């Protein structure tokens, strides 16, 4: 199998399992970042690791944005961004298990392709797969993660970030210095079960009042050979003890940045990013063949340079400029493929050049108007494709406005996208233009209590895999559309002195049309991408945030969420799967985090729950996957040694050791342990 293919089968893990088949083609029976107030980001590394702010209230002017900042996720046993996202309301994370396993998110069951990702305000894209492996991003160097559903809260954004059903924004730690300090240093060493070793270094240096530098170095290695039980049926049937093989990963990241800011509110950033990894692709656990079923390897490299500039041109006019050049390389190898060469190997190279400009007119705080224009040029080089060097030129133009009057808040935008495809001599995807609207309104009923509604219609382009990959690609694909309608209410209150409570409830109706799916055509081995699928999603998201001060030196925080979703296949009324819940979408899911801070101690507990799901299109008993609950705890203690702050931490993941799978036959690790040591000065 080609790993790359498995990415293209998003939202159909049942089909991902067929990825193998896809390249075989063998007949016969058997394939981020809201521009937040800069002042709020003025805190030092020590503050972050030691106490930091409490988890921010999630009801922000009635907008649908969820946030988690470093003070919270550093206190929890989370390593990768995907670990934290599992605790966001309405989010399901597809996790193939292990640190190297592919992790993508689906917000409100729309599928991974419909959530855009931004890193320090600039989009992170992958034109080949159309989705990003969120396992790649470590939490270490992040200041916050936020997830907007529907429209982004901040309209002063690159236009590309309006062009998705949801937006995940990752904000890296910006340098901030305590009075009199010129340098912050953080050294972190983490180790744990299954050969985990994870050292990292963060160095921030203040050059003068305007300029500062930051360097982030990160390394991770893991054997990932966790034990698991293989179940050969249901309860009472055969069980064997196995060990996950070929599940190792080594990852290295280097991220130097330069920051500038003047007293007039202008700022600029230049960031270099280099990430490389090598990993085994353990594949599905195959009955009676667990030792050598997959020896597949994947090497990848991503590097980019991005620049950001923001300036207040005039009291009412601001300008933002962003640019990025991005390159990535993937090398896949199956050393035991049964062809004549005895191996299957492929290389993929991607390049993207990106430029974005946004102009904001804000004559008064209650009214703003933004014009934003992006241009992106993407290309791919690979011999695995129908066409040699497909290119895509994307133009995004947004006119967005925001106004508030009394208790009302109104925000809306019109997005125009023009996508142009060039695929040389081969068959190519059609050019595409579309104007899509989005509107949101909120009303403050009383102080702290809002009702809100939004509507958004948007599409996602077929990825290059969808269009051109080998014989699976289909150049005739058209974009996949989503429509979202949301009605909700949020309440933020202080029930008692020293307490803060936020409650949020949203109900929504989404529709996916022309869903791009991999579909078998000739036989079980030969699949093609088709616009075939219509999905009706009705759901309710509930979240609760409660913070309680326990005297001067202690605080308790609770964060909980629950999602109820009906995600129905409404493609073909004649099909036996019509009206059945889509694979891998639980009807009930929820999560909870409890965090106690007392003096220099932090104790956390987390719980993740998913109800039953089905691994096939038919909700038959044989396709059912059992509900699971995953719990973790962590304990951190901080010390002050002269000018150095030291934090010691211990974590237990999957506390009960109960085995579960998110994707069929991809076992998640059982109980495991991690310890960490952090020095900051």
């Amino acid at each position, binding site marked *: 199998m080609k790993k790359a293919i498995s990415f293209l089968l998003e939202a159909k893990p*049942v*089909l991902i*399992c*067929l*990825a*193998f*088949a896809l390249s*075989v*083609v*063998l*007949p*016969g*029976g*058997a*394939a981020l970042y809201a521009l937040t107030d800069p002042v709020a980001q003025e805190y030092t590394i020590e503050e972050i690791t030691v106490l930091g702010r409490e988890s921010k209230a999630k009801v922000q002017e009635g907008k649908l944005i969820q946030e988690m900042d470093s003070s919270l996720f550093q206190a929890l046993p989370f390593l990768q961004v995907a670990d934290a996202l599992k605790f966001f309301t309405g989010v399901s994370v597809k996790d193939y298990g292990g640190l190297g396993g592919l992790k993508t998110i689906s917000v409100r069951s729309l599928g991974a392709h419909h959530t855009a990702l931004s890193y320090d305000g600039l989009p992170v894209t992958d034109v080949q797969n159309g989705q990003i492996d969120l396992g790649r991003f470590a939490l270490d160097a992040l200041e916050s993660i936020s997830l907007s559903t529907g429209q982004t809260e901040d309209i002063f954004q690159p236009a590309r970030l309006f062009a998705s059903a949801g937006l995940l924004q990752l904000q890296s730690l910006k340098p901030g210095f305590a009075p009199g300090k010129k340098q912050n240093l953080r050294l972190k060493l983490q180790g744990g079960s299954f050969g985990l070793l994870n050292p990292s270094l963060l160095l921030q240096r203040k050059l003068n009042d305007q300029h500062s530098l930051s360097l982030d170095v990160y390394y991770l290695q893991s054997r990932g050979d966790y034990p698991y039980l293989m179940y*050969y*049926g249901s309860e*009472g*049937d*055969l069980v064997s003890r196995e060990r996950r093989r070929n599940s190792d990963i080594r990852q290295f990241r280097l991220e130097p940045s330069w920051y500038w800011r003047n007293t007039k509110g202008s700022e600029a950033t230049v960031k270099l990013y280099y990430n490389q990894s090598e990993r085994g692709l353990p*594949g*599905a*656990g*195959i*009955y*009676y*063949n667990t*030792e*050598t*079923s997959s020896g597949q390897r994947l090497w990848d490299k991503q590097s980019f340079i991005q620049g950001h500039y923001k300036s207040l041109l005039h009291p009412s006019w601001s300008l933002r400029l962003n640019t990025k050049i991005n390159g990535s390389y993937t090398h896949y190898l199956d050393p*035991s*493929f*049964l*062809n*004549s060469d005895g191996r299957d190997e492929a290389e993929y190279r991607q390049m993207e050049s990106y430029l974005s400009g946004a102009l904001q007119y804000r004559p008064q705080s209650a009214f703003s108007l933004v014009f934003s224009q992006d241009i992106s040029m993407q290309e791919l080089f690979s011999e695995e494709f129908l066409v040699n060097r497909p290119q895509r030129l994307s133009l995004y133009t947004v006119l967005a406005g925001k106004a508030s009057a009394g208790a009302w808040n109104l925000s809306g935008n019109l997005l125009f996208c023009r996508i142009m495809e060039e695929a040389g001599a081969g068959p190519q995807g059609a050019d595409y233009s579309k104007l899509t609207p989005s509107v949101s309104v909120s009303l403050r009923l009383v102080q702290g209590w809002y009702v809100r509604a939004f509507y958004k219609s948007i599409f996602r382009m077929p990825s290059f895999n969808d269009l051109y990959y080998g*014989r699976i690609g289909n150049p005739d694909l058209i974009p996949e559309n989503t429509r979202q309608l949301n009605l909700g209410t949020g309440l933020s209150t202080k029930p008692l002195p020293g307490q803060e409570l936020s409650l949020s409830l949203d109900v929504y109706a989404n529709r996916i049309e022309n869903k791009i799916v991999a579909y*078998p*055509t*000739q*036989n*079980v*081995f*030969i699949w093609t991408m088709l616009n075939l699928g219509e999905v009706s999603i009705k759901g309710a998201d509930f979240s609760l945030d409660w913070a309680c001060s326990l005297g001067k030196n202690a605080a308790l925080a609770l964060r909980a969420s629950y999602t109820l979703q009906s995600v129905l296949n409404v493609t073909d009324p004649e*099909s*036996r*799967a019509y009206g059945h*819940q889509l694979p891998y979408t639980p009807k*009930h899911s929820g999560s909870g985090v409890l965090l106690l801070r007392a003096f220099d101690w932090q104790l956390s507990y987390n719980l993740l729950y998913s*109800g*039953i799901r089905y*691994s*096939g*299109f*038919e*909700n*038959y*008993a*044989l396709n059912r996957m059992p509900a699971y609950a995953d719990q973790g705890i962590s304990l951190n203690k901080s010390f002050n040694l002269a000018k150095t702050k030291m934090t010691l931490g211990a974590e237990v993941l999957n506390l009960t050791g109960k085995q579960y799978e998110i994707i*069929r*036959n991809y076992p998640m690790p059982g109980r495991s342990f991690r310890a960490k040591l952090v020095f900051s000065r």
Partner: protein
Amino acid sequence: MEDRPETNGDLPGLDQGACRGLWILSEGLMNLNNSTLAYYSFEQKSLNKNVFRSLNKRGLGDTGNDMKAYGSKLYIVVSLSSQIEVLDLYSGLSIKRIPLFDENRQARQPRYIDFLDGKAYVCSFDGSLARIDTASLEVEAYVNCGRNPDGICLTNNKIYVSNSGGLDNPHFDNSVSVVDPLSFREVKKIETGLNPYQMQVDSQGDIYVVLRGNLLDIPFSLCRIDSRLDSVVQVFNDIPAWNLAIHNDTAYIYHYSVQGGENSVKVFDCLTETIISDQFISDGTPITRPYAIEVNPYSGDVYISDAYDYTLWGDCLCFSAEGNLKFRFESVGLNPSSLVFVK
């Protein structure tokens, strides 16, 4: 969320020519370990869709590619699990699981099985042909054939293995290996058309080989090997065969069009090598995607499985020799691929 009930269809009674039962193997899909074995008892009018697991307390594995009976045993070829599962033909209880791995412990990926003189022969994707003693159930020897064998048959005291070269797509193979069972050596490679697949034999020792072309511009076809000459004596370019079954020298050959989705089952006379009928199904019963075809040797009824879109559980339909639908087993499993009738 509640499990949806699986439907069964109107189950037939005891009119199957004294046939007591029917085994139906469904492949499932790769990497899902969801191959299932169903058993229908004509005597008790009962259908158990997951009988292997309920009897043996474990699943078959990934993916059940072929199933045949020999003597009082039922052999199931499980491809990615790389096992031959041997069951008691009558009880369905497992007698032995035979792993097929090479010296580097790599899975051979067995595909099809056939029998001769107390030996089972299994061709595997790694190019090997295994000989298994049906009494001891031990692998006795291996011999190498061509690239990615994907079909086997025995006639005239010789073993024929089709070399598809499917994993070298688009550079498919175009040969059938002839193996002498005594010396257990490949004695000849017969050049066929591109991408040979399953083979069936008639009473005259003719071998009908499904040729799958290159899956693009070279279409599916059929050719005939004369096992006395060991060469292709006839190519039927007008028969785009996907699979076939032969009963009393009558072949039932199905075809499916990827572009239009239409399909047909032709009836072919193996003695005169002519088409008797272009459409076997005479009562207009629609089939979405035929996936397996087998004739009940005791009644002459023709069984065709419908895999729908390969992701939904398929049906197994029974037609009279005249092409009228007699009954169907609904949602019998994912991709029903092999049938064995038990007298």
